[in-house]
């Protein structure tokens, strides 16, 4: 089993499940959060290597979570991959100070794109 743990923050359960299919096949440990509050709890309780983050979440957007993580010091350094329908409205320049390493466009991504980006970050 890989020692790498990925947190998927995504409010569509079936899309989370789809990400997990890909990640588990490559032996990543996968944790799930459907909203920012649950994500914070999981981040507090686990050692994470990467966060895959959707932008529009139930209860708040990813930006509130990014701000919150920044205030936490060490866990604010966990690399983040944003996976969103809104990629054309976001810029990596604006988000990189919050630990965002790349933005994946959900509308054009291939299932393996997540793996490629995680490997780019971790290896």
């Amino acid at each position, binding site marked *: 089993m890989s020692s790498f743990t990925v947190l998927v923050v995504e*409010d*569509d*359960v*079936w*899309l989370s499940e*789809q990400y997990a*299919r*890909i990640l588990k*096949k490559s032996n990543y440990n996968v944790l799930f959060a*459907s*909203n*920012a*509050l*649950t994500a914070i709890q999981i981040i507090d309780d686990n050692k994470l290597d990467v966060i895959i983050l959707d932008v*529009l*979440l*139930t*209860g*708040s*957007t990813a930006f*509130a979570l990014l701000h*919150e993580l920044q205030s936490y010091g060490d866990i604010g350094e966990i690399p983040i991959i944003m996976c969103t*329908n809104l990629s054309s409205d976001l810029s990596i320049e604006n988000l990189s100070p919050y630990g965002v390493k790349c933005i994946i466009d*959900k*509308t054009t*991504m*291939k*299932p393996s794109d997540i793996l490629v980006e995680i490997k780019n970050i971790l290896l």
Partner: protein
Amino acid sequence: MGATRGEHNKILDGPQFTGLSSVVAAAHELKSPLVLIRQLSLMLEDSDLEIIEKKRILQQISLTSEQALRLTSDLTRSARLSDALFDLEPINPQQLCEDIINELKPVFEARNHDVRLLSRKNPLLLIANRDLLRRIIINFSDNALHYSDSDNTIEIQIALHNSGNTVRLGVRDYGPTLPGDIMKSIKGRFFDKSMSINTRPQSSGLGLYIASQFADVMNGSIGVIRHRDGSTFYIDLQASRQLSLI
């Protein structure tokens, strides 16, 4: 938690959709299911998938397509509201809700949700158009399925209000339970105050707007109650006096 203890809002000031804005909102609402269908379809190209996994993916594609098609059907019906006449008739809400639960059973099961009907002991009737009311409750149910945590029960509630003059049909979903003090302290940090309380944050509000249009046609109104652990979306309709018909 009782419905009346939540944060209660009539949906009166939600987004308005006309012309281009409705097209944009529809595109936004359809994007998520299409993204999911595309991802799942691409996954099926993986020859290493076990049969049981392939079956699950195919079921998810099918149910997600049906959800998207319901939205397109509601949009079409909404656009033609002014041209059509909708008969209002006495309806047994319990029977209607039971039919809806049977209709949505595959999607409830596939998403690991239980659904239960909370109705009154004594039967009642309301005045509505059967097709429009069915669409509203299915819309609320789809919403609840998407936004509540897996393994939680979704409740369809039937209650009398306004001294028995109004029948309320509500769909209650359950999210993570937050202790009151934590809810208070995080609200400012995690919830955008400028965001309309009437819509889900990632939603354009188009579904609710269509539901409110359908409710208007039936002289009803829709609203939402925010609970500490979820929401109840509801429609209020005039009670029928023809109880003897049941």
